[in-house]
């Protein structure tokens, strides 16, 4: 165990937490649905799942709903579209918007970081999405590139009540200017962290203009060019002085330590009101086709829940893993070769989130509705999984 760990962290990642999860972490029902594709059968399944978690009418009626999509990275696996492997599928996004609109959502905003010189719609077009059809799914549907200021005049500062790494984040205004925050993520592995579900999806809410490698020293860089490695992954530098700085500059710099904690800080700063995890078609072996060993998978499952930690715990179990697995235990370790001398483990973000009271990762406390876990089980480890690939 690292010498810089706090008692809370120690509990979170130790065997003790397996036996005694923090009692204050709330639990909420999670629905598992089976769906064989992204066609006409999708809306009834998702609609039923919304009902199974208590309905969404009260949650979204007359309100603005912001949806953080997972459209990470570029590239493709062979002839598969990104939506079939490492992005959420456009038909799921469209169906979700339709159901939200039908439930009374007044305005829907799709949020995700876009690349340099492109809008979010451009990014979708670049993956072959039918943006016009997507627009038609709701009366007011907006697109916001959250890698920069975009439609906002200033960044919103969202605070973390019990921070691990950052006490607050400066984010695109859309994360504050919303009544409901929905995370639409993908069921898949992650090269450095083990899994990419709801909690990890929030890593992408940080703007590259502030948390990118070429962010300004004093101010955001709206013409950013580089990703979020130096600041967030490795802590080699701080964000611009205009943004909140780390709580402890001497803490561990290893990404297996930092990234899960930063993700938990982010879901604390911008709580997730509704989590949807797309596992109809997805991938094993990494978060995108740039990871060696990345493969197509078709678990045919959708996971929906109001609590992001509970939803991720159930999703992790559906992947065939123990949601309370400890640091370094499968799947919480690096899958591919690290630099010489670099550590290989990653911390379990669900336990870290549980430790600060965001949600429970204890399956005994989470009511699973719809399909039982055993019937939805899709063993990610057997299908290529996280086995170390030098």
């Amino acid at each position, binding site marked *: 165990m690292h010498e810089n760990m706090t008692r809370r962290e120690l509990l979170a990642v130790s065997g003790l937490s397996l036996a005694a999860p923090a009692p204050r972490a709330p639990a909420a029902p999670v629905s598992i649905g089976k769906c064989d594709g992204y066609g006409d059968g999708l809306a009834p399944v998702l609609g039923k799942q919304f009902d199974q978690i208590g309905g969404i009418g009260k949650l979204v009626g007359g309100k603005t709903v912001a949806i953080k999509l997972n459209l990470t*990275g570029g590239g493709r696996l062979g002839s598969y579209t990104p939506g079939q492997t490492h992005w959420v599928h456009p038909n799921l996004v469209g169906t979700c918007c339709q159901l939200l609109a039908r439930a009374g959502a007044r305005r829907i905003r799709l949020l995700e970081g876009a690349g340099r010189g492109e809008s979010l719609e451009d990014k979708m077009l670049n993956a072959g999405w039918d943006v016009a059809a997507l627009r038609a799914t709701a009366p007011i549907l907006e697109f916001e590139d959250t890698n920069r200021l975009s439609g906002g005049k200033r960044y919103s500062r969202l605070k973390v009540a019990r921070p691990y790494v950052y006490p607050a984040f400066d984010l695109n205004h859309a994360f504050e200017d919303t009544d409901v925050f929905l995370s639409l993520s993908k069921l898949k592995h992650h090269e450095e962290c083990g899994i990419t579900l709801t909690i990890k999806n929030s890593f992408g809410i940080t703007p590259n203009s502030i948390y990118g490698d070429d962010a300004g020293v004093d101010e955001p860089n709206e013409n950013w060019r580089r990703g979020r490695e130096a600041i967030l992954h490795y802590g080699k530098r701080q964000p611009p002085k205009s943004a909140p700085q780390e709580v402890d500059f001497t803490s561990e710099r290893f990404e297996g330590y930092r990234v899960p904690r930063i993700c938990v800080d982010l879901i604390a700063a911008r709580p997730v009101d509704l989590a949807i995890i797309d596992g109809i078609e997805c991938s094993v072996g990494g978060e995108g086709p740039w990871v060696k060993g990345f493969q197509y998978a078709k678990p045919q499952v959708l996971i929906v829940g109001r609590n992001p930690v509970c939803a991720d715990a159930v999703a992790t179990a559906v992947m065939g893993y123990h949601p309370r697995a400890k640091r370094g235990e499968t799947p919480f370790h690096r899958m591919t070769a690290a630099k010489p001398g670099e550590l290989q483990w990653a911390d379990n973000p669900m336990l870290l989130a549980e430790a600060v009271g965001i949600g429970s990762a204890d399956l005994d406390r989470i009511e699973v509705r719809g399909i039982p876990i055993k019937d939805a089980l899709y063993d990610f480890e057997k299908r290529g999984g996280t086995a170390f690939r030098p």
Partner: protein
Amino acid sequence: MGLGPRIAAMALVCAMLDAGGPAGWVPARWQGGPLEVRRRVGVAPSEITRDWYSPRTLDWLENTPINCLLVTWSAGAEAALESEQRKLVTSYARAAHRRGIAVLGLLYPGADPGRAAASATEAGLDGLVLDGDFPDGPTVARELRRSCPLVIPLGARDWLRPEADWPVWGTQDAVAPRIRAISESGAVDATPTSEPWIDSNTWLVRSLGAAGGGRPVWLGNVLENPSADGYARAIADAAAGGGRWVVAPDDALRAGLWRGQPEALATWRRVGAWLSFYERHAEWRAFAPAAALGVIQDRAGKNWAMSDENLNLIARRRIPYRVIERRELTPAVIEGLPVVLAAGLAPPTERERSLLAAFASAGRIVVYKEDPPDPEALSKDLLDLIGNENLPVRLFNAASVLAQAGTDPGGGRLLVQLVNYATEPSERITVRAAGEYRGARLYSPDAPPADLKTTKSGGKTDVLLAKVAVYAALLLEK
């Protein structure tokens, strides 16, 4: 030159004119005869190669626009074999000429240039082509020209210098057009922000076209085990830049044609149809590049290889560009361009310096570095500098596709030619053109033209292409 050779040379020029001359030639490698069997020992089936120059192989050219054959002429073999080859080819060339087909003799390393040129003239060939790794190709070509007025060097890229006045600018230094790297998992080599590597020759064709002052450009590379789509892609890749791939049927296709195999005949018909398509649309070669960037190249300079790599990567980043040969650099040529890359000028002359200074003082950008910049970083920086939103043509969902865009002389039509380098079709491609166009028509060698819907927004026009297997041309009209 004595009277005999002079008369023979005149006959040769007449033959050139009969066949329309190099600008109208649609060439094919048509190697055969006993010399070719010797040259390619071990390549089966040798009897087909040996008997290739029988009249029936000319029948296969009917219904294709191929009107120029590159035939095996001399390789420096023993006299008896060379003589037997010459007799065979002389007779075959006469038969080809009767069908209006030009015949060029291929010379391989080892051939005696003087003797080969004299005998080619005597045989009534339309010219000679240097094929292969000659230690000093340009010198050999110049020697050949003393007795053979039409000589085409089809060798290394560095044979092509601006001072050369070859009737055709040809090279074998070309690649098989394709996506190059596929990992073991089937994933195209990619990173979170990058795209697969595309091997294309279109940039080279455009570079040679600019350097050659509009003379025809031929790519003389041979494909390894090509599929029917592989042939089509090689034709399209060269044609999209305004050049021609010298059609090179491989041994499997030749054997299949010889034996009348239906699959081979279908492939050959497709080759013919694709060549015909580009000849039917020959006017597209006169379209001026729709460009956001002018690239000044100097093929006479020491950095020409680096300039080539710059162009290759600029094309791969899909930055619409115009190639400007250094000697052609005038204010009019760069007028209207937002950015000019002058890395090929090392160093610029006073005239060039003042011309570019005037360009920059008008608020536009000149990119110049004394030392050749890293092409990969340069192409990225250029795209940043120009900005995606300022590109005259932009593609979406087209990772395996490159496009060439040009406007007609009247400026009312924009042509976007798309070549897909993947073996799988590319689907749901959006083409975004700057400007408002009222109509869009899709052309393809494999299908009749079709009108497509345009969507206009913010001074730009979007057109959705459902599927591009190998090639499509989109013609937008104002």
